């Protein structure tokens, strides 16, 4: 352990962090979720990232009100064939970033499906709606998008390409996640979740562990239907 002192490993940082939160990134294929993550983290992201086709996990350390916060970003793939694994993405998430592509109407229309699924698993967590690729058509920023209004969700106009509002988006999401975690007095909700996800929990526990990366690739039937 002695050598860890000179070069603290990521796990050690976790030990000293005041808190940790999990933020999930949702939306259709190719809306730019991964490009947004990369733009925010630049090349500072931890090399220990866990990468599969279905999910990329990024670790990030942030400061919120003088406290060190360890953030797990779960960047999920939009492809339909991964749907059966989604339950584990939502599990214990503290905030959600939901992205659509301003150049493709389908991705906007599909927000309702993503949102319904999100609320099935996480009825209360803060959610930000993101209109990405505004560099391709800046006029969209002058238009209203009712989806966000209808559910009283904040809407951010961003571009992973030129960087507009990307850092703000992620920093705000981290703040929302932290304050959700601190204020969710929803004790019953927590217990309910624990019971519901009991099986899932056992499978998922070791996810941040390198050797266990296989477990996340395996779509689990139980995970698919926590309500059964």
């Amino acid at each position, binding site marked *: 352990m002695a050598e860890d002192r000179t070069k603290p490993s990521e796990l050690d940082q976790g030990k000293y962090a005041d808190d940790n939160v999990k933020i999930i990134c949702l939306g*259709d*294929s*190719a809306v730019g979720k991964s*490009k947004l993550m990369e733009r925010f983290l*630049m*090349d500072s992201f931890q090399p220990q990232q866990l990468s599969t*086709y279905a999910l990329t996990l990024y670790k990030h350390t942030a400061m919120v009100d003088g406290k060190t916060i360890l953030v797990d970003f779960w960047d999920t793939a*939009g*492809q*339909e064939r991964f749907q059966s694994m989604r339950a584990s993405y939502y599990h214990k998430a503290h905030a959600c970033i939901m992205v659509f592509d301003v*150049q*493709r*109407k*389908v991705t*906007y*229309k*599909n927000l*309702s499906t993503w949102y319904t699924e999100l609320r099935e698993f996480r009825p209360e967590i803060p959610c930000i709606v993101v209109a990405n690729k505004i*560099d*391709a058509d800046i006029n*969209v*920023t*002058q*238009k*209203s*998008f*009712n*989806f966000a*209004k*209808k559910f009283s969700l904040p*809407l951010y*106009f961003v*571009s*992973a*390409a*030129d*960087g*507009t*509002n*990307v*850092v*703000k988006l992620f920093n705000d999401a981290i703040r929302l996640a932290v304050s959700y975690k601190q204020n969710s007095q929803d004790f019953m909700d927590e217990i309910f979740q624990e019971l519901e996800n009991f099986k899932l929990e056992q499978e998922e526990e070791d996810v941040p562990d390198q050797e266990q990366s296989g477990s996340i690739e395996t779509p689990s039937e139980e995970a698919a239907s926590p309500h059964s």
Partner: protein
Amino acid sequence: MYVGMMCTAKKCGIRFQPPAIILIYESEIKGKIRQRIMPVRNFSKFSDCTRAAEQLKNNPRHKSYLEQVSLRQLEKLFSFLRGYLSGQSLAETMEQIRRETTIDPEEDLNKLDDKELAKRKSIMDELFEKNQKKKDDPNFVYDIEVEFPQDDQLQSCGWDTESADEF
């Protein structure tokens, strides 16, 4: 143009019979316009245009001549040849190329397999790379904040339906 090159590409096209990629270039030494014929071998209507383009571009004999010709353009030329070999009309081939190089905004990309999805993303990459502000740009700014006020005066995006149940 970049110095030290042995030639400046002027035009690049395809000949169907016998198949060849033809490059018109200006030779730097004599300042003369010349033509280089690069025969296309082992290419059928089932061949992969991207691979054929890559192979030609990396061919040691042609490499230096093709430096200024983009992979995308070569790929397009091979698509014309493939169309010809499959008996398509020129108009049909043009339409197919247009389909393969633009994004259909109605298409549900969630249903595609990895290979098809990667193709769509590489089409998107063209604009992405054009608009990208890179970290090593001298005027790169990490945190760019722009406010876009959402007041009631805004025009609708046109993607919301009238019905009250939908957005």
